[in-house]
């Protein structure tokens, strides 16, 4: 980490340090995010690999960490520590790595979208591997934090890792990781020759002639993640998939869908710097979505999923479910 970082909110410096030292956002032991896939027997050497990303792999831990940060932010202690996740962790002896170990058991459930995504891809006959504990962090947050040198270094290391495993093509699932792999990393890696596709593009190609049926009748609203809709331009794809599933009635909010979708309030580390404001934005977004009377909110980004669940919780709404699109497709395929 370079020295001139005093203008960067400490929360982001903390995440950046975790990426550079542990190759994940949370500072969990290196490679520990791969546990979700330990029984899947996915090959580690493959031309096409599934890129799971930090967000899903560590989502239970992130959720717990965020709930602590939010409580802190609202408390008198938090007021004196405006951005200080890092300084807080030092002063209060709080160790996210330890928290991670405590919550290790929970992570299995939270990785459900990943397990479902793997089932869907297998069900569609796609051949792919997974780098498991060798999967590098895309480092996107380094770029968005403004630490471009660190990002460039991370990008070059990542490329070397991918090449050493013989990777030619990536199927990404986290919107931000996918955009980083497809658009940002190539700017720092001369001759970058990895083809990047998003999970939804692969699914859409694969499901053409399949019968898809949701286990029950449901009114579904789809929340577009910013990076998926406005960065990667994947707006029609999720809708075409949802519309192909029998039993699902897809509804849209007034105005705020597709390229006009409202951010869930969890963008690019914002939730670490402004946890309480982030929660307010999550609540606002959930309200917009529920004006349609939907009973399932579907999205496709680990950050959005956390935020939307947080919004529902804050509004004390219990009869609405948040599901990842990968889960919905798996249910509809019956895999």
């Amino acid at each position, binding site marked *: 980490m*370079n020295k*001139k*970082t005093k*203008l*960067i*909110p400490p929360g*982001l410096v903390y995440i950046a340090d975790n990426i550079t030292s542990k190759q994940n956002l949370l500072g969990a032991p290196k490679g520990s995010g791969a546990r979700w896939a330990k029984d899947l027997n996915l090959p580690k050497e493959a031309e096409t690999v599934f890129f799971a990303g930090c967000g899903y792999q560590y989502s239970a831990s992130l959720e717990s960490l965020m709930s602590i940060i939010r409580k802190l932010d609202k408390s008198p202690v938090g*007021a004196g520590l*405006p*951005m200080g996740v890092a300084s807080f962790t030092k002063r209060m002896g709080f160790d996210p790595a330890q928290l991670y170990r405590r919550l290790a058991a929970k992570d299995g459930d939270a990785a459900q979208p990943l397990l479902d995504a793997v089932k869907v891809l297998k069900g569609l006959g796609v051949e792919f591997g997974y780098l498991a504990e060798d999967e590098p962090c895309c480092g996107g947050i380094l*770029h*968005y*934090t*403004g*630490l*471009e040198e660190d990002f460039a270094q991370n990008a070059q290391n990542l490329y070397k890792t991918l090449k050493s495993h013989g990777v030619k093509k990536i199927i990404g699932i986290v919107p931000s990781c996918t955009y980083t792999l497809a658009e940002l990393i190539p700017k720092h890696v001369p001759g970058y020759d990895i083809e990047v596709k998003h999970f939804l593009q692969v699914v859409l190609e694969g499901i053409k002639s399949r019968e898809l049926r949701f286990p029950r009748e449901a009114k579904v609203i789809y929340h577009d993640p*910013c990076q998926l809709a*406005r*960065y990667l331009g994947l707006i029609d794809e999720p809708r075409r998939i949802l519309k192909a599933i029998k039993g699902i009635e897809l509804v849209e909010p007034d*105005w705020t869908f597709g*390229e*006009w*979708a*409202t*951010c869930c*309030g969890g*963008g*690019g580390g*914002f939730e670490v*710097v*402004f946890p*309480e*404001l982030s929660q*307010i*934005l999550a609540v*606002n*977004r959930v309200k917009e979505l529920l004006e349609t009377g939907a009973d399932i909110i579907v999205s496709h980004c680990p950050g959005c999923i956390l935020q939307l669940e947080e919004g529902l919780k804050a509004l004390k709404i219990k009869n609405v479910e948040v599901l990842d699109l990968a889960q919905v497709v798996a249910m509809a395929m019956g895999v």
Partner: protein
Amino acid sequence: MSVFGDYKKEIMDAAHNERIRLALSRAIKQYRANVDKTLKAFPQTIKLAEEVRGIKERAIGNMEKLAEQACRAIEANHGQAYIARTADDALNIIGGLVGSGKLIVKAKSMTSEEIGLREHLEEKGNEVYETDLGEFIVQKLGSRPMHILAPAVHVPKEDVAKLLSEITGEDLPADVEVLVATARKLLREKFFKADIGISGSNVVAAETGSLFLIENEGNIRLATGAPPVHIALVGMEKLVPSLADAWKVAEVTWRYANYTIPPYISVVSGPSCTGDIEKVITYGAHGPREFHVIFLDGGRTELAKHPGLRQLLYCLRCGGCLYECPVFGVTAGHFGDKYFAGIGAVWAAMISGDKEKAAALAYTCLTCGRCKVRCPMAIDVPEMVVELRKMLAAGG
């Protein structure tokens, strides 16, 4: 407390303020409906916006020459023109022209907010009236603008009624029509008693030195037409080569500011004059006798050289992006400095020199990118914000 600590407290107080949220939710809904209707009625605006982007790109690369050309044109029109390199230069020029003990009527101008013009003139012992209704409300509240086109966007009508009731000593209802009529009554005589009128400009044609002023209320026509002296402060990024270019810029600006056609578009190129008595041209007829235009650099020519950030100068100040910013939607202009939201962070870095404030704003941007979708100039605010963060992370 630190700059960031103070700022965070300010935006969190705003985010918990139900009045702000009520006013903004009404405004955002109204804006979207209006702009949707406007662009459906004039679908050619979208193509015109692309053309204007090209005009702006070329003009920004040529600001210095355009400013010199405009100065020559204005002087040929018997006006006075100046190029101010810094905000202080601009304040000194205008302060020198105004002096003290004057009554001044002001049109709304973000560039004057940028340099703190009203406060400067008040300190010099002048009486200054903001005549744009929103700006008047904000001035009387002792607040600052919270949107570039709708400065009182954060004040619901009930609060305006309370404010104007206090000023007039009457018990006014929260009825928008009554409130507007009250403001008209309060400001009417000021226009005709004023020594000086001050305005900005939406776009300037360099070839003729013509200032385009777009408005609804009619206050700009009065403020720039009734007093004997008209002073205009204009950012150099407002310059375009020709009258035809300026018209295109103006049209796109008002469409994205949600108007099909505004009631008034004034084009001012010099002081008023007449040759009606023996063909002797005499300056100072019914309009102003003196016309002064100050072009403000204030970091703009430097910014134009920066490949990632120069797009900031393409901004038409239509204000559309602000309505699409989720953070602005709950905090209004508290997420800002002189200018607001993500794009305001870049302005703050450029004009205020306060790196800590600029950093606080830069890291408040979600980089969600909905502003870019709205922007007629397709300004990539997230890209600029990340660029700014890189500069800040490297120590500014």
